[in-house]
């Protein structure tokens, strides 16, 4: 069982890591780390090993300005160094928004970052900050902190709400390795029902669009966990209500998602139903030529789903209700408070297929096999044994050893994804369901 004194191979990095990735993903933004020199490198190497070959961006990796505080700053404080660094960053780095992020060291020594940033803001510089010391939380916390700061300090207040305009978040850049494709997938689906969508982090987004984000009539957070606090802050500052949903992967979940959005925005019911019908038609047209192979090649699989709080329920629902697989064990790898555990657990109740997979919360990769052994009876030298086969593990690249031990095929979806190249691929929406079917079935027939 999970240890309380350590986390084995954490499937996230620190608050700063999430924050740096998030700022790097903002169009034209320059992160500025107020940390020792090594933090940027640790985060960058994490990305090259865990984010489907995506590391850095416009200003990421070892290009990010960093105050590189050291021993003497720990003793005397790092405020002067930060002032110097910000001033010179404005001369050297071309950006539309500069974003100071603190780390463990500068938080513990108590540098007055707010004061320094305030001085520059007074001079009309587009500069904001977030407190992202690593000991304050993991990378999802950092993602949330950056959004909160953006909503409080960058998004213009008092703008008129425009009907049909929505903001979408809940997908943390790089931590959800398929962030760009997933955000695009949501945009496509929402545009179909006539909405205008701001997704913050894709090539279609701009800082100007983000500045006008308060003109949206609704914020849609496609997560039960990530970015939810930021949505509350947004509502407080700008008066925009928010809807939290699970990450919609595949037709069953996307049908439900669109109906939730319809209800929240009082969209035209028959129009939404018409679009749902049309999108399902397209999805199943694509699936039609797969029918023979699915059935003839015996492509149904027992499955173990290992993933973060977004993917674990979403992939499970897709496997159970769209692909007709048999998810038996679901492992959620986030560290969560009981209340959030309960909220996530409810996502597994009422699957259309009637399946009731066992759901466990486990951060430690090497413990997953024990959960499986408790769940599935072992072969006690029986001639006739109902084995966990044919099997599939949908997880991260850390779950390859589990798949190997079970003789199962494997696909990395949840962070870390070391063994795939990811660019615009995404699993959200109807198209995303097709992508996921392609990737799962490709892995299943890889040795054919």
């Amino acid at each position: 069982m999970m240890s309380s004194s350590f986390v084995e191979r954490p499937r996230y990095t620190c608050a700063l890591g999430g924050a740096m990735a998030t700022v790097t993903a903002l169009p034209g933004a320059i992160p500025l780390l107020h940390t020792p020199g090594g933090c940027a490198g640790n985060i960058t190497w994490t990305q090259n090993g865990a984010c489907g070959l995506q590391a850095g961006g416009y200003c990421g990796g070892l290009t990010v300005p960093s105050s590189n505080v050291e021993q003497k700053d720990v003793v005397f404080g790092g405020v002067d160094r930060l002032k110097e660094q910000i001033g010179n960053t404005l001369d050297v780095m071309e950006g539309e928004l500069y974003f100071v992020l603190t780390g463990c060291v500068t938080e513990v020594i108590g540098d007055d970052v707010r004061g320094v940033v305030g001085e520059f803001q007074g001079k009309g510089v587009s500069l904001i900050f977030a407190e992202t010391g690593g000991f304050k939380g993991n990378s999802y916390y950092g993602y949330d902190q950056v959004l909160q700061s953006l909503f409080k300090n960058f998004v213009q207040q008092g703008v008129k709400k425009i009907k049909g305009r929505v903001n979408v978040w809940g997908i943390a850049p790089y931590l959800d390795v398929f962030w760009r494709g997933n955000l695009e997938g949501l945009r496509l689906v929402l545009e179909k029902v006539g909405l205008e969508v701001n997704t913050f982090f894709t090539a279609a987004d701009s800082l100007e669009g983000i500045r006008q984000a308060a003109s949206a009539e609704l914020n849609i957070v496609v997560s039960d966990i990530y970015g939810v606090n930021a949505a509350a802050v947004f509502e407080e500052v700008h008066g925009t209500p928010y809807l939290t949903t699970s990450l919609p992967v595949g037709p069953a979940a996307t049908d439900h998602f669109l109906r939730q959005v319809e209800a929240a925005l009082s969209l035209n019911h028959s129009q939404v139903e018409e679009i749902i019908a049309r999108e399902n038609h397209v999805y199943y047209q694509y699936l039609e030529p797969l029918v023979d192979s699915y059935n003839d090649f015996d492509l149904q699989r027992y499955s173990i789903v290992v993933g973060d709080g977004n993917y674990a329920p979403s992939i499970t629902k897709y496997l159970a209700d769209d692909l007709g697989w048999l998810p038996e064990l679901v492992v959620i790898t986030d560290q969560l408070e009981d209340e959030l555990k309960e909220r996530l657990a409810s996502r597994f109740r009422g699957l259309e297929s009637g399946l009731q997979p066992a759901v466990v919360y486990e951060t430690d990769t090497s413990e997953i096999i024990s959960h499986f052994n408790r769940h599935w009876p072992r072969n006690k030298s029986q001639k006739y044994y109902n084995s966990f086969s044919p099997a599939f593990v949908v997880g991260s690249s850390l779950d390859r050893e589990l798949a190997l031990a079970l003789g199962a095929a494997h696909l990395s979806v949840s962070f870390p994804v070391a063994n795939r190249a990811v660019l615009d691929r995404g699993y959200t929406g109807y198209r995303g369901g097709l992508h996921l079917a392609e990737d799962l079935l490709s892995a299943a027939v890889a040795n054919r």
Partner: protein
Amino acid sequence: MSYFDGKVPPIREDRLKACITYGGTICGLKKKAGGCCFNDGERGFTQGSICLLLPGIAILNSIPDSVVLLHGAIGCGSCAHSQNANVRSGNVQRGGKVKDALWMSTALNENDVINGGETKLEEAIREADRRYRPASIIVVAGCVPGIIGDDVDGVAAKLQPQVNAKILPVHCEGFKTKIWATAYDAVYHALGRNLLEEPEEILPIIPDEIADLKEKYYLERTVNIMNVSSMGRVDELELDRLLRSLGLEVNFFPNFVHPEDIYKVTRAALSISTCPTHDDYFLKYLEEKFGIPYIARHMPIGINNTSSWIRDVAAFFGLEQQAEELIANEVAELEEALGEFKKVFQGKKVYVSAGEMRALANSSLLTELGFEVMGIRAFHHDEFAEVEYEKLTEGGAKDYPLNIANAQPFEEVNLLKRTKPDLFIGHWHSNTTAAKLGIACHVAYNTGLSYIGYQGVYEMARRLYRYLKNPAFNKKISKNIRLPYTEKWYESDPFKYIKTLGGEE
């Protein structure tokens, strides 16, 4: 008193007067040799870099049958997600089985920062011992315990009698040193203090004198080769091949060595480094404590460097003549094979970036291949590189820019705009700038690829030929992607932000 008697090794700023800041030319640096830092080592503008924790755990994650317990906030050491690829392939190449690295984090939170993390660390060590039954638990301390004052060595000493695993405290508090090469000292320090004791010998009932003689003979011809973690199995095999052909035995150390085999490093006849700045701290200790002489001079990258490296080892064993025969044969064969590539490389301009020894050795190699070196960026500077600067400036060779910088791509981008090379050789995550300028790039190390020895020269040439033959990927990137620097910066002095003290430079 040895450095190894202390709990923590000295930082390299103190021990070697190593520095990370210089902007000038290669001849300029040579003239100042011995003086090392010419200023206070500061910049008024800096970019992110790495700290000693990264190279530290790159080595430690490779140690089999062990767990790396990071004592720090939850992100410290998440770079292991990248290093895991090396551990997986390294294990396959050495043992035939895929095995992931096993690391964990005490994930210190706000409460621990206030109340201290020692209790959590104690529990973590006990739990790791019980759960994984490892041969060693390597406790790596990051910045947070360094600031809040956790006594990591005290915890290790207290817990040692209670657990089966050997506990190795390693100090990697990133804010304490700017020289990330201090990592090697930190790792060697931990191995040297904890794992060098020979296991008790079990005397055979019937003495076997022939076996004893055989072992003695074997050990008298055994060379420790210090295998830096950026060196893959393919490079080890090349050095193994070369020394074996002189009739020598090789013991690679410390990457991928089981904790129970670490002590074997104390039984060899000679130690040889493949990167002097990597190994000096430990080699000196092996000599002092165990009487094992060492050589730390050349990096076996490039034709002449490889030959010099072999000659040094051969001279120690009185094998000069065999070595000359080997070298003559190898070099002749290699030169012939390089012919087709050299024609393409002749007169092409190259800019080189890496750790100092590697950057300089690569520059020698590239010169041998026919390239013209336009500039060098080395991550830090210390005394070990002086011999390499000698080689590069020999016989009034052309002078060119030298930048000592712990990455700092803003200085590099400015220099690249001026020097306009055809090819850039860079460390991981250092090729991005040149790539976005449309320059053909190749990575200065990658543990899957061959770099070392004569084989390394050929394989490197083959790869450079490929990237020069079709640099379309980077060229297209440069036409569609912009770098995040102001136009004003490109026109500024590249070393504008280097602060100079004492009237130097």
